[in-house]
């Protein structure tokens, strides 16, 4: 028989635990969300011609202020690393500003600053974003350009950023689900905002949306089954339930599997990567940079948190599966990357391979695995951000020239752009003196220390295959004759220059002096 359902009378009169909120700890998130709401109001009330400058200022300022709030909190006298939103009498916060969350918040804010700079730049070809107006009948919809430009991308980006920050700090699955949607819905829309090649852009938005909604349904069903298993969706309660033996294991395994599918999709890992190349190619390049860098950070932050806090006790059950997923992801990324002829698709497959490397670190389940993965996220984010920044510069009459053949002999036209891009590709390949090498070193050594040597061998093999397609582009840029009607390299505006410089400097710095960032990443683990 059922237990008695609680009547409304009981609920109204029972004392509700009011959560304690450590405002200083969560101030970066609050700043971002308040600014996102302000940004919507700016969109509603300011005249069209003044919106752009106000929105750019507001969004960049938001990221800076949130970063300052984060810095102030980390350096304050308060006990750092245990704050957040806590229900009285419970040790683990519902929404936790612990050290991994703080590190990844900082990473997200820095990366989104760079991505917002790319989004804001309109010195080249008037900017990448358009108001959504359909083409006139009879026009060619593939090459169609919408008139005008719009600024809705800024509030959307801020909401996505806020969602990402909540996503990786949430200690219960329901908050995580809502945050997942708050970060995804703006991204779906941002993909469809390209000013040139609108049809491809909209197509990528539809694909991303349908597959994204599909995967969040999986996440949600996993949530429901785990709720049935543990009687709660809080990560610590699920962990406590896995320690007992009297519960139906089917619910646990099915719930875990479905939940992880949703997370793996967001991180564009392995067999759940199908959307990545299409969406990376179709979306406006600044948005692709934002997605590639920031979404990966948020998704891996959540994967680390869920695996560590909720499923550590049952890790021997699922580890083999995630081994297989990591191998599939690395091999798909490396092998299919070889066959690509489009620059953005190639970087997309590269990101799938990198997601596999990151997963190797994430399933190590040790302190070194955690810090190594977070360091890798920081390093990879900046490199890929700068790489997409460069891609926005190489253009022909139809906008960005992303076909590989168009990049032939680029070094002769524009030595600086070619050498910068070559450096970034070497960083993606993981050559020493770049952040990519240090990231791989940290992740792989953590994995070996945790007894995953065979997986690391596969990872090294995949790195070697992937290095080939990065080198192919370098060879193409330096040792091929430029085509007659090849693309021109635009002079970047101040914003794009700043974003690319930021990415390159961090890539170099983390490659030469990785110690300080590794120290930050290894200050402490999740609160549990």
């Amino acid at each position, binding site marked *: 028989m059922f237990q008695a359902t609680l009547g409304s009378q009981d*609920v109204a009169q029972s004392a509700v635990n009011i959560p304690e909120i450590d405002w200083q700890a969560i101030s970066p998130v609050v700043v971002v969300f308040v600014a996102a709401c302000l940004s919507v109001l700016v969109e509603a009330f300011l005249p069209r011609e003044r919106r752009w400058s106000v929105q750019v200022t507001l969004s960049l300022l938001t990221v800076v202020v949130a970063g300052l709030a984060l810095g102030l909190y980390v350096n304050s006298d308060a006990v750092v690393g245990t704050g957040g939103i806590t229900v009285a009498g419970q040790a683990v916060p519902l929404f936790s500003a612990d050290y991994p969350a703080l590190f990844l918040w900082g990473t997200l804010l820095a990366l989104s600053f760079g991505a917002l700079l790319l989004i804001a730049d309109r010195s080249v070809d008037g900017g990448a974003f358009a108001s959504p107006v359909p083409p006139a009948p009879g026009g060619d919809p593939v090459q169609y350009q919408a008139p005008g430009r719009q600024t809705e991308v800024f509030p959307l980006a801020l909401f996505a950023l806020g969602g990402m920050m909540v996503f990786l700090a949430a200690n219960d699955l329901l908050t995580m689900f809502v945050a997942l949607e708050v970060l995804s819905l703006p991204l779906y829309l941002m993909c469809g905002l390209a000013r040139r090649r609108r049809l491809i852009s909209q197509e990528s938005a539809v694909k991303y949306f349908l597959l994204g909604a599909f995967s969040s349904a999986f996440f949600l069903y996993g949530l429901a089954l785990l709720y049935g298993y543990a009687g709660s969706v809080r990560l610590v309660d699920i962990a406590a339930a896995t320690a007992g033996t009297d519960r139906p294991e089917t619910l646990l395994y099915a719930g875990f599997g479905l939940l992880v599918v949703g997370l793996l999709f967001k991180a564009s890992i392995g067999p759940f990567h199908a959307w990545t190349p299409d969406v990376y190619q179709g979306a406006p390049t600044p948005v692709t940079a934002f997605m590639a860098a920031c979404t990966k950070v948020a998704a891996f932050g959540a994967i680390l948190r869920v695996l560590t806090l909720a499923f550590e006790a049952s890790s021997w059950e699922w580890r083999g599966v995630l081994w297989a997923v990591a191998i599939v992801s690395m091999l798909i990324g490396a092998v299919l990357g070889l066959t690509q002829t489009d620059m953005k698709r190639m970087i997309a497959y590269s990101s799938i391979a990198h997601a596999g490397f990151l997963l190797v670190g994430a399933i190590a389940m040790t302190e070194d695995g955690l810090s190594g993965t977070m360091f890798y996220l920081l390093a990879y984010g900046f490199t890929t951000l700068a790489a997409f920044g460069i891609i926005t510069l190489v253009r022909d009459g139809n906008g960005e020239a992303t076909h590989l053949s168009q990049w032939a002999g680029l070094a002769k036209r524009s030595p600086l752009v070619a050498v910068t891009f070559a450096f970034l590709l070497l960083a993606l390949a993981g050559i020493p003196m770049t952040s990519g090498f240090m990231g791989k070193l940290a992740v792989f050594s953590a994995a070996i220390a945790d007894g995953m040597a065979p997986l690391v061998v596969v990872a090294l093999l995949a790195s070697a295959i992937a290095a080939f397609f990065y080198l192919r582009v370098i060879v193409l840029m330096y040792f091929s004759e430029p085509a007659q009607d090849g693309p021109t390299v635009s002079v970047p505006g101040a914003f794009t220059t700043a974003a690319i410089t930021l990415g390159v400097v961090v890539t170099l710095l983390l490659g030469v002096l990785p110690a300080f960032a590794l120290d930050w990443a290894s200050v402490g683990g999740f609160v549990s």
Partner: protein
Amino acid sequence: MLESYLPLVLLFVLATGFAVFSVSVAPLVGPRRYNRAKLDAYECGIEPSPVPVAGGGRIPVKFYLTGMLFILFDVEVVFMYPYAVAAGGLGVFGLVAVGVFLLAVTIAFVYEWRLGGLDWD
């Protein structure tokens, strides 16, 4: 125990029997007089409008827009119900939290209103 369901079963049998009987007998005995109105698609007695399909027909975007906005704000308000049930126990904290929630919804509403989402023409 089960006997008390007997009238229900009888009702089902009668209803099914009547449906099968009328559907199968009507074509056999009824007169057939077709006209244009009978062959048209049924649209509440109004002249059917051109079907909005791929390749020509018009899409009533306004209906979609209004419908979408309605769904959004309609469903947001669902959070009021659990709050109303538990308002006593939640006290000032709950009131402030719901206030913040309503403020966020209002900002979205103001945006919609300013951008002309509520204008029919």
